[in-house]
């Protein structure tokens, strides 16, 4: 499975407060597909974000639904810390930043 398919799936994971998906928010740091296993490394907009567990679960369940996937590992990291510059143009547009 190509990583682009994983990223496309993560485009369905929406931050419920901001209403923008994780990919366009620049919160997906990396995805690795090894055989039938996926490792996704993501961050959140604020350390201590109360949506931590919910977003992590959303990512996990979304990726587990992909065909042929056997195991998903979601890592939430704070280094490097997320910054608004990591957002895509689409993400910035949806937050009226540009």
């Amino acid at each position, binding site marked *: 499975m190509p990583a682009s398919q994983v990223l496309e799936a993560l485009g369905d994971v*929406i931050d*419920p*407060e*901001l*209403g*923008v998906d994780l990919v366009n928010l620049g919160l997906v740091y990396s995805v690795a597909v090894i055989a039938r296993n996926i490792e996704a490394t993501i961050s959140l*907009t*604020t*350390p*201590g*974000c*109360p949506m*931590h*567990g*919910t977003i*992590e*679960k*959303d*990512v*996990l*369940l*979304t990726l587990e639904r992909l065909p042929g996937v056997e195991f998903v590992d979601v890592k939430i990291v704070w280094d490097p810390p997320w*910054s*608004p510059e990591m*957002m895509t143009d689409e993400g*910035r547009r*949806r*937050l*009226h*930043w540009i």
Partner: protein
Amino acid sequence: MNLRANAVPFWVPARFLLTGAASLAAAATALALDPELLLGYYATPAALAVVHTLTLGFASMVLVGAMHQLMPVVLVTQLHSARLGTVTYWLLLAGSAGVVIGFATGYRVWLLATGGSLAVCGLLVFAYNVWRTSRSATSRDAVGAAMLAAAMYLTATAAAGVLVALSRRIPALADALGNPTLLHLGLGLFGTFFLAIAGAGHKLLGMFVLSHGVSQKRLRLLTGAVHVGLALLAIQTFTGLPLLEFAGLALIAAVILFLLDVIAIVRKRVRRKLGLPLRLFVLAPVLLVPTALFSAVGPAPAAVAAILFGFVTLSIVGMYSKILGFLTWQHRYGALVGRARVPLLGELALGWLDRCTFWCITVSVPLVVATRVVASPLVATIGATLFAVAAWSQLVQAFWIVFGDHSLEAPAAEPAAA
């Protein structure tokens, strides 16, 4: 670091928040039915009943409820005890009811002292719970320090209130204490509400508007200035030393630092378009300017109206839907995430009620403050009526957020920011 562990049972903070909204509606209704309360002597039993419905029943309830949720988030830890949160709620509810009824029935000291003591007990339990929570903190910063201090000052405010009530009936106590009314006001308005709003606001506003890189230095300094101001006020109260001006200067310095902090957060925001509740929160600090002005040149009741009806109420109403919305979302939809379509947080609230609350309260607050200056019954009536409409709108919104049908079948909406 497992932040899922900091989840607090829904009804622990939610019952405080719903009771708070109901109290705001009750206080506003009382004002609308008798707007002359805004014109007359501010310390009549009826006026004090309304003020304490607002301060104890609304502001303190919401603050205590929100802090049960926010302290674990800010300190990145677990709430020490949800059960103590429930104990706090019932003691604070009974105590607040006792105080309000004590005033409403004509200053019944035994009822005021009993109600006040129950409230103090509830707030002591709360302070202990928050303090124990802070002991297990994995993150210590200026936000946590400000909110922890606000929790302690809230207990001190209620204790000072009991002393005020008792000193009016026990001359020996009055001789020993002097007049603790100003200390009671200072502890409540600055130690509790101002500090809690500044602390929580720094964290929440930054989080909601995606403002990064704002230093906590100003928050740390303003917390220190509030401590100094209130310490001077306490020394003046108990010794009679003329320190009021110095206390006032320290508190004005804290206000200026807070205004600078809010401006810095708003200027650095990524989320350009703010929802109406957040606009209220950003608008609220503006009311600190007339507060300072009327404190300096009078009339003093206008200063109290500006900070209580203006700054405190606007700030709390502004953050209220956000906090209750988040709690409800986790409670009702958290388990569905990844399995079914869930609403965005902004979809839990009804837009027309947000608009109603926003416009009614932003128009009513200047009128309520102006009533004290122009002494016009017409201004008082219009201000109080609009304030009541805003309060009821907020109450209906609160119940809609918690119990309403949020129409999951509807297509995904634009971001809540819009």
